[in-house]
C-alpha cells in the first residue's frame, strides 16, 4: 500500500517537474524545426521565470505573471532572432551569449527592483499556480502537434528546416517563418520559466533553471524533433528528476545513501547514447543551423 502511495506521489511529481521541460522543449522544437538552433532555451527560461515572478508580484495575479513570462520570453527571442536570423551570427555562439546575458541580466534586475541579487520576494501560495501549468503544457503540446501537422504554416515551418530554398521558391518568406517560430519558441520557453518560478517554487532565484533549458534540448533530441516523442522524453526526464529528489539521502542498500548523481546525469547520458545511435536514431532537420540568405 505504501509502495502504491509512493508510486502515485512519484507520478504526480513527475507530471509537475516535467512541465517546465515540456514547455521549453516545445519551444525548442518550433525553433529547430524551422532551422534555427536554440541553445538559448536556458536563457529564455530564465528571463521568462523572472518576468513571471516580477509581474505576478506587482499585479498580484499569477495569470498576469504568465503573460509577463510570455512577453519577456518573446522579447528575448526577438533579440535572439535579430542576431541569428537577420545578422547571421553563428547560432551556437549567439545562443551561448544569450544564456550568459540572461544569467547576468536577471540578477542585475533583481538587484535594481528588489535590492537582492539572489532571489525575488516570496509569493504567497494563493498567488502561485496550483495545477494549471501542467494542463496548459499538455494543451500546448496538442496545439503544436496539430499546427505542424495540419496547417499550411505548420508545413512551412517543417520545410523551412529541411529545404528553405524550396520554401522560398514557392514564394514564402523563409525568414518570416523562422521569425515566427523563434518568437513562439521564446513564448513557450518563457512559460517554462514561469512554471519554475510561480508554480513549482514561490519565487525566482538566481540561475533557477540550473540546466533545465539544456535538458529540454536533450528531450527534444531524444524525441527526434517530433512533438509527441519529445513530450514522452520530457516525462521520462521528469521522472528521473522526481526519483532523484525522492531518493536524496535515502539508504536503499548497504550503509551509504544512494548516489543520486547517477540519476541526475541519466537524461544527458541517454541523449548522448541516442545521438550516437546506440538507442535508436535521431536525425536533425537538414538545414538546422544554416542561416538563410535570400538572393
Amino acid at each position, binding site marked *: 500500500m505504501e509502495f502504491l502511495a509512493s508510486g502515485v506521489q512519484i507520478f504526480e511529481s513527475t507530471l509537475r517537474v516535467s512541465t517546465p521541460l515540456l514547455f521549453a522543449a516545445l519551444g525548442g522544437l518550433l525553433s529547430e524545426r524551422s532551422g534555427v538552433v536554440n541553445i538559448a532555451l536556458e536563457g529564455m527560461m530564465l528571463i521568462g521565470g523572472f518576468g513571471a515572478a516580477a509581474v505576478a508580484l506587482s499585479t498580484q495575479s499569477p495569470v498576469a505573471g504568465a503573460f509577463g513570462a510570455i512577453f519577456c520570453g518573446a522579447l528575448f527571442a526577438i533579440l535572439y532572432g535579430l542576431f541569428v536570423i537577420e545578422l*547571421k551570427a553563428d547560432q551556437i555562439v549567439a545562443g551561448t551569449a544569450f544564456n550568459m546575458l540572461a544569467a*547576468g541580466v536577471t540578477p542585475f534586475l533583481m538587484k535594481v527592483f528588489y535590492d537582492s541579487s539572489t532571489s525575488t520576494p516570496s509569493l504567497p501560495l494563493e498567488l502561485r499556480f496550483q495545477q494549471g501549468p501542467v494542463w496548459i503544457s499538455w494543451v500546448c503540446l496538442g496545439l503544436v502537434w496539430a499546427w505542424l501537422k495540419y496547417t499550411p504554416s505548420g508545413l512551412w515551418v517543417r520545410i523551412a528546416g529541411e529545404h528553405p530554398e524550396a520554401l522560398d521558391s514557392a514564394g514564402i518568406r523563409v525568414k518570416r517563418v523562422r521569425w515566427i517560430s523563434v518568437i513562439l519558441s521564446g513564448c513557450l520557453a518563457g512559460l517554462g520559466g514561469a512554471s519554475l518560478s510561480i508554480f513549482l517554487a514561490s519565487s525566482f532565484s538566481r540561475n533557477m533553471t540550473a540546466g533545465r533549458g539544456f535538458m529540454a534540448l536533450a528531450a527534444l533530441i531524444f524525441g527526434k524533433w517530433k512533438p509527441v516523442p519529445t513530450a514522452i522524453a520530457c516525462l521520462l526526464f521528469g521522472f528521473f528528476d522526481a526519483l532523484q529528489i525522492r531518493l536524496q539521502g535515502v539508504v536503499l542498500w548497504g550503509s551509504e545513501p544512494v548516489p543520486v548523481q*547517477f540519476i*541526475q546525469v541519466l537524461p544527458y547520458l541517454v541523449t548522448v547514447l541516442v545521438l550516437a545511435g546506440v538507442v535508436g536514431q535521431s536525425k536533425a532537420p537538414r538545414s538546422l543551423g544554416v542561416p538563410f540568405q535570400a538572393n
Partner: protein
Amino acid sequence: MRFKEKLPQILKPLISIMVGLSLGLLVTKIAGEDPWNVLEILVRGAFGSRYDFGMTLFYTTPLIFTGLSVAFAFHSGLFNIGAEGQLAMGALSVAAVGILFPNAPGFLAPVLGVLAAVVGGGIWGAIPGWLRARRGSHEVINTIMLNFIAAGLTSWVTLYLLKNPDSQNPETAAVAPSYLIRQFSFFDGAPVSMAFFVALMAAFVVWFILWKTVLGFEIRAVGQSESAARSAGIDAAKMRMLAMAIAGGLAGLVGVGEVMGNADRFRVGFSPGYGFTGIAVALLARNRPFAIVASALLFGALHKGASELDLETENVTRDLSLILQALVILCVSAEGVWDLAGERYKLLIKKKWIRSAPSPELAEEHYSPKV
C-alpha cells in the same frame, strides 16, 4: 595589400569590444549608476594595485587555456562547448593524482600533475571527438551533455571517493605538498602561479602546432573542408579525434593553476564558467593563439574588475561582467553587420583577376556550411 587585408581584421574586434562595453555600461544607468564611475571601478579593480593585477592574471590564466581549447577544436571544424566539463575532469584528475601518489618526489610531482590534467581533460574531450568521427553525432550537443555528466561525475567522485573528511564543503582532501607550485610574492598574495607561464607556453605550442607542423596543416585542412582533406589522403576522423583530445587537454590544464597553484584541492563548482567564457575569448581572438592571450586578459580583467562592483556600488553587482561578456560576444559574432557596413572590403584582390562575369549560380551550387 597585406596591410589592407589585415586592417579590418584588427579593427573589427576592437570596434566590437567598444560597442559591446559601451552598451553594457549604459545598462548600468538603468540601475542609477554613473557609467563612467562603473568603468573607473572596473579598471581600478582590475589593475589598481599589484594584488588586483595579480588577481586579473589569476583569472586570465584559465581563460587562456579554455580559449586555446575552443580555438584548437575550431580549427578542426568542431565547436567545443565542453571546455567546462573538460576543465573539471582535468582538475579532478590533478587532485586524484595528488592524493593517491603523495610520495612522488618534489621534481616529479608537478610534472605528474600537469600530465594528469592533460589526460583527464583530454579523455573528456576525446569522447565527443570520437562520437563525431565514428558515430557522426554532433559535437555541440554532445559537449553540452558531457558538461552535465562531468558535473555529476566529479561531484560523485569528490563526495564518495576523495572527500575531505574535515569539511562540510563539497571538496576533496588536499593534495600532497610536493604538488604545489610557486606563487609569486610580487603580487601581494594574489594566487598567480607558474600556471600563468604554462598558459603562455601553451599558446606558443598551439601556434607552432597549427601553423608550422604537418599535423596542424592537416587539422586545419579538415576544419576547412572535410571532403577535400579526405580526398587528399588525410584521415579526417583521426584528425578530429586528435584535435578534440588536444582541446580537452588544454582545457584540463586549468586544473594545474586551480589545484596546484590555488586551492590545493578540487572544489566542486570552482569554475565560474571559464569554459563558456573561453568561447568568447577564442571568438574575439579569431582563434589566433597569441591574440587569445590578449583577449583572455581582457575578459580576466572584466571578471576581476566586476567583482569590486558588489562593494563599491549601490545597485550593480558582479553579474555585470556576464552582461558585458555576452554583449561583446554578440557584437563580435554579428557578421551580418559588416556585410551591411561594407561589402566591398571582401573584394581585396584586384578586380581584373576575378572572373569577368561572376557566376552566382556556380557559387550557390557549391555553398556548404563549414560546421
